[in-house]
């Protein structure tokens, strides 16, 4: 190895290893050990940052990081500097001394379990939802505090505080790092899927700020659900449904913004730009989700996404199927986005008046939602009511949260008035 040799440094290595090593250490340190685990992993990476520029990247960078992190953990525990671990020092020394298993495929299951255990801990119901999301992104996905703050439009100190409190809550509740027992698994899994979905939703359509889309967040979410599905204990039909919907939505991302970064709605997207491999993957997950007897919101959303993916263009979409799915979805999950999309689907099936009627029915609670006014504007325009449409777009503009969305709405207003 020599100065400048970085051949072994594959894309995303540090981020992946951060999650993997934190999980491995936390599992061995036991309840309350997350803080120490994170610190040891950070220490190892800082050491790499200080040494590798001079020595070159070692042949097995992951193994190097693991060794340094484990030795650090051992030193810290022996020093007695942290008494937040439940496991006695001698036993710890033994488990920490186990050689790093990274390259050996026999241990692949063990490694996956380290990360799975960590995900379940981070998504523990004792934590507030935003804390579960932040903690998962930080410890499992290796995101930095700055990145998390940007993604969720918070500030670094706020996120940092949240993480500190979350880890303290887990320590006080003595939350362990293992895959939950069968009796607890369904509820705990529900929480994990929810966090994964929140991460994906944020990446797919960042609600505020300069970026509409954060593909890296979408990729992380898909990676997390893939991990869940890789273990038979945590693989469920619902997980497959979530994976399906995420793959199918993510497949459309390349077509979602045009060359200058403006939003293109589904109607106007160039379907040739959709990622066919992701679509195929989505359909495989959809098939796998068709088992068991629970029809979850993820199932219905996936079915809707599948209908769009299968259609050659917007007009030739199977709107009857889509409206059917939306109606079923609205019955169990009457969220604003669902109601709005249902209105659009009904308009495509039976004309703008039908869509406007659905919108009027669902008006309660949607008044301050900018999309509601944007959708109504579109429907009014289709129905020939230009003045009404302009008014709706203006109202939507007042409420819009992201810059791309505001630009889009200004464009609509200009087009109506032209």
């Amino acid at each position, binding site marked *: 190895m020599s100065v400048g040799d970085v051949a072994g440094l594959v894309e995303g290595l540090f981020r992946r290893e951060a999650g993997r090593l934190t999980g491995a250490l936390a599992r061995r340190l036991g309840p309350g050990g997350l803080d120490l685990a994170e610190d040891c992993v950070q220490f190892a990476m800082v050491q790499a940052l200080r040494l*590798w520029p001079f020595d070159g990247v070692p042949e097995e960078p992951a193994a190097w990081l693991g060794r340094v992190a484990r030795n650090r953990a051992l030193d810290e525990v022996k020093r007695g500097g942290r008494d937040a671990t439940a496991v006695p020092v001698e036993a710890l020394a033994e488990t920490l001394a186990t050689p790093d298993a990274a390259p050996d495929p026999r241990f692949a299951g063990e490694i996956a379990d380290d990360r799975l255990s960590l995900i379940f801990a981070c998504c523990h119901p004792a934590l507030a939802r935003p804390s579960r999301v932040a903690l998962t992104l930080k410890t499992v996905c290796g995101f930095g505090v700055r*990145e998390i703050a940007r993604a969720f439009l918070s500030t670094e100190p706020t996120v940092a505080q949240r993480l500190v409190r979350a880890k303290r809550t887990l320590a006080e509740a003595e939350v362990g790092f293992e895959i939950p027992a069968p009796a607890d698994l369904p509820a705990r899994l529900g929480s994990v899927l929810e966090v994964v979905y929140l991460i994906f939703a944020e990446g797919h359509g960042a609600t505020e700020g300069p970026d509409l889309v954060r593909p890296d967040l979408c990729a992380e979410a898909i990676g997390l659900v893939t991990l869940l599905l890789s273990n038979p204990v945590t693989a469920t039909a619902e997980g497959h449904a979530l994976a399906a919907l995420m793959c199918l939505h993510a497949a459309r991302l390349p077509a979602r913004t045009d060359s200058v970064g403006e939003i293109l709605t589904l109607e106007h997207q160039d379907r040739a730009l959709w990622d066919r491999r992701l679509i195929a993957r989505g359909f495989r997950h959809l098939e796998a989700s068709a088992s068991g007897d629970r029809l979850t919101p993820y199932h219905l959303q996936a079915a809707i996404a599948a209908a769009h993916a299968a259609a050659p263009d917007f007009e030739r979409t199977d709107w009857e199927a889509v409206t059917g799915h939306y109606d079923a979805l609205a019955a169990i999950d009457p969220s604003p986005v669902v109601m709005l999309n249902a209105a659009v689907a009904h308009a495509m099936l039976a004309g703008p008046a039908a869509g406007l009627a659905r919108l009027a029915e669902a008006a309660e609670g949607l008044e301050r939602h900018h999309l509601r006014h944007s959708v109504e504007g579109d429907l009014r325009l289709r129905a020939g009511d230009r003045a009404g449409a302009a008014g709706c777009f203006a109202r939507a503009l007042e409420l819009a949260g992201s810059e791309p969305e505001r630009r889009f709405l200004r464009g609509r207003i200009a087009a109506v008035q032209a």
Partner: protein
Amino acid sequence: MPGFVLLLHDTSWHKGDLAPAEMQAIIARYGAWAHGLAERGMLRAGHKLTDDGGRHVRRDGERVTATDGPYAEAREVVGGLFVLEAADMAEAEAVARTCPHMDLGWIEVRAIEPT
């Protein structure tokens, strides 16, 4: 070609504010930077110095004393160095400006006295 030494002074970044992806990016940039220098035949050596402050040896009249140097975390000590060959100070300085260490501290550029 004249020799120059780049002394890399660390500021207190190693408290761990950097995210994993940021750290990897800096290492990768170091690789590109050093590779570029090596290709131009400019890089003679690079060494990381240990974190302990080393020893300071002084003569005080008749006596010679040796004390521990300040530990790396205590103040901005030199954490590492590169030895370059460059046409002149301007070129050496230009190389220092692009060194990824600029994200982590500051660089002292010194010319080696020609023999």
